[in-house]
């Protein structure tokens, strides 16, 4: 089964006529994802690499039965694109766009809280169910079908970990990049809930980093609700407080959000934490025994 996306997922690409949108639409389609439509307001009727373009998501959902959307829309227009997708009945919205103002996302989360749709991101690499569907910008070839679920707040660090897993012959059920912003839709706890219920996932890998309290919430959640083994890695032990490490989410502020706190919380919940990325493979193997 995997979670959230599979070979039945019908993807609409919002912002398909832009440079990134067009490129990744093709990449996704090449991976085997069912990319059924694109949307760019005012460009309805065109085609991008054989994919029909509509003016509104509503039309894409009507005409092509799209149920998942992925956004490559400039940040100033991204929140509107999310609203539009949700309003059109899209069940899963994957927002690749980075640079959306935090308070704009605060409003978006209020909008989402009234309905059933899920948002992954923003500022994230997307979601992939290896061998079935890739909705995002990850390099598909490093993934391999299997039974390890991956949830990560970091992009390239995920690739690093996944690459090592794949090289060790350990495939992934679904891998989700949660995104690097302070306000994100889909969080560790959401992923843990779904992986726990997914019969095709045996182990979950959490890749966390400094900033926020998502890892602590995940630790809590695991001790109460998760029976499957979970292993983790946290980046940023050497990060100094008050300095943003790349994206707005990764910052130790007010003395909280440190890697130490997170590692402590995870270990207290019985989750083994790798002291370096290369050790994750070993922990996963151990968990699978």
């Amino acid at each position, binding site marked *: 089964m995997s979670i959230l996306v599979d070979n039945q997922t019908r993807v609409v690409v919002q912002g398909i006529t832009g440079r990134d949108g067009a490129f*990744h639409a093709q*990449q996704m389609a090449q991976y085997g994802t069912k990319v059924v439509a694109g949307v760019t307001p005012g460009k309805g009727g065109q085609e991008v690499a054989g994919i029909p373009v509509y003016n509104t998501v509503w039309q894409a959902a009507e005409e092509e039965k799209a149920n998942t959307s992925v956004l490559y829309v400039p*940040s*100033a227009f991204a929140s509107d694109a999310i609203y539009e997708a949700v309003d059109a009945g899209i069940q899963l919205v994957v927002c690749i766009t980075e*640079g959306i*103002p*935090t*308070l*704009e*996302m*605060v*409003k978006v*989360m*209020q909008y989402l809280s009234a309905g059933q749709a899920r948002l992954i991101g923003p500022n994230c690499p997307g979601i992939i169910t290896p061998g079935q569907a890739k909705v995002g*910008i*990850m*390099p598909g070839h*490093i993934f391999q079908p299997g039974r390890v679920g991956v949830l*990560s*707040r*970091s*992009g*390239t*660090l*995920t*690739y*690093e970990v996944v*690459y090592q897993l794949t090289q060790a012959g350990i495939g992934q059920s679904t891998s989700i990049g949660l995104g*690097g*912003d*302070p*306000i994100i839709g889909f969080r560790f706890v959401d992923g843990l809930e779904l992986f726990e219920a997914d019969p095709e996932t045996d182990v979950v890998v959490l*890749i966390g*980093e*400094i900033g*926020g*309290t*998502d890892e602590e*919430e995940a630790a809590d959640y695991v001790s109460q609700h998760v029976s499957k083994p979970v292993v983790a*890695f946290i*980046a*940023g*032990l*050497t*990060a*100094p407080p008050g*300095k*943003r*490490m*790349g*994206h*707005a989410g*990764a910052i130790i502020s*007010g*003395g909280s959000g440190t*890697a130490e706190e997170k590692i402590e919380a995870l270990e207290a919940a019985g989750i083994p934490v790798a*002291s*370096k*990325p*290369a050790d994750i493979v070993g922990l996963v193997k151990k968990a699978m025994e």
Partner: protein
Amino acid sequence: MKVHEYQAKEIFAKYGIPVPTGQVAQSPQEVRQAAAEIGCPVMIKSQVHVGGRGKAGGIKMAQTPEEAETLGAEILGMKIKGLEVGKVLVTQAVDIDSEAYLGVIVDRRSQKPVVMVSAAGGVDIEEVARETPEKIHKLTVDPLFGLLPFQARKLVFRIYEDPKIASQAAKILQKLYRAFWECDASLIEINPLVVTSQGEVWAVDAKFNEDDNALFRQSWIAQMRDRQAEIPEELEAREKGLSFVKLDGTVGCVVNGAGLAMGTMDLIKHYGGEPANFLDIGGSSSPEKVTAAMRILLRDANVKVVLFNIFGGITRCDDVANGLVSAIKEVGVDLPIVIRLTGTNADEGKEILRRNDLVAVDSMEEVVQKAIQMVGA
């Protein structure tokens, strides 16, 4: 993005929050003139983007314009936590009956703005939060309704008994929230909010951090950026589209991706080394970015080795290798360089490097260990 106290007070004034009269001065003469115009006693406050200015001697009171000039000369040019004081704010000294704290941030857990008030103002609020959290009263705001007047009243009634003062403070708190929301702040604070012996309420200090992602729609705040008040390397990095944070180690790092960059730093430390920096060049293979990154790194005399950790994803490794080669040629590096290159088209990339007498390894572990050996050597 941080703005100076005097700029934060400009924002406050725009929202009708009462702030003491003040003028910015960049020379002792200007300090004297400002003090004379405002009327002594005045406070002379260094304008630098760090906390703890008071303890560092960056805030002084002057009783006469002459004293102001003398103190201004002391403060201007001094260094506070590595930043040189280029400007001071000369401001009316208000007599203080009580000091409180008002602030607004976004709470990442509830994903909503949180308003905080405390009667323990005038001191480091993070310390208060750690040691006596019960002294901070918090309220989560429904962002669609904003901070409602009754909520502001309810909060300030917890720190003020006098209804006249509470009423002024409640209005200030609402204005503070509006400024936070409308200006896309990531943090806004009044510390201290002062009640004078005449029963007036003033924002004596002001802190305002802007959400970098919102600068495109807050151009008037973007214009407040003081390039001279930033750490030069970080400024240069930002202007080149790089994410750079200077640290104190010897291993300079150039990495694509923030998580991988942090992971690299951690691994250096893990193997007994010390990273010289955090540096994320992003997903791009542009030689310009790599060149800029190396120039910034090499300016740090502590750096003994340059480590590249590149995971090619959508970006192809051969493109990255070409970028690396031309950057290294252009900058002209004397230091040893170690490279890790993995991912899409890694073999082609390595071949390009080899033709330019550069060797790339496969794993992150390997490249880090190699770098540390070189530093040790």
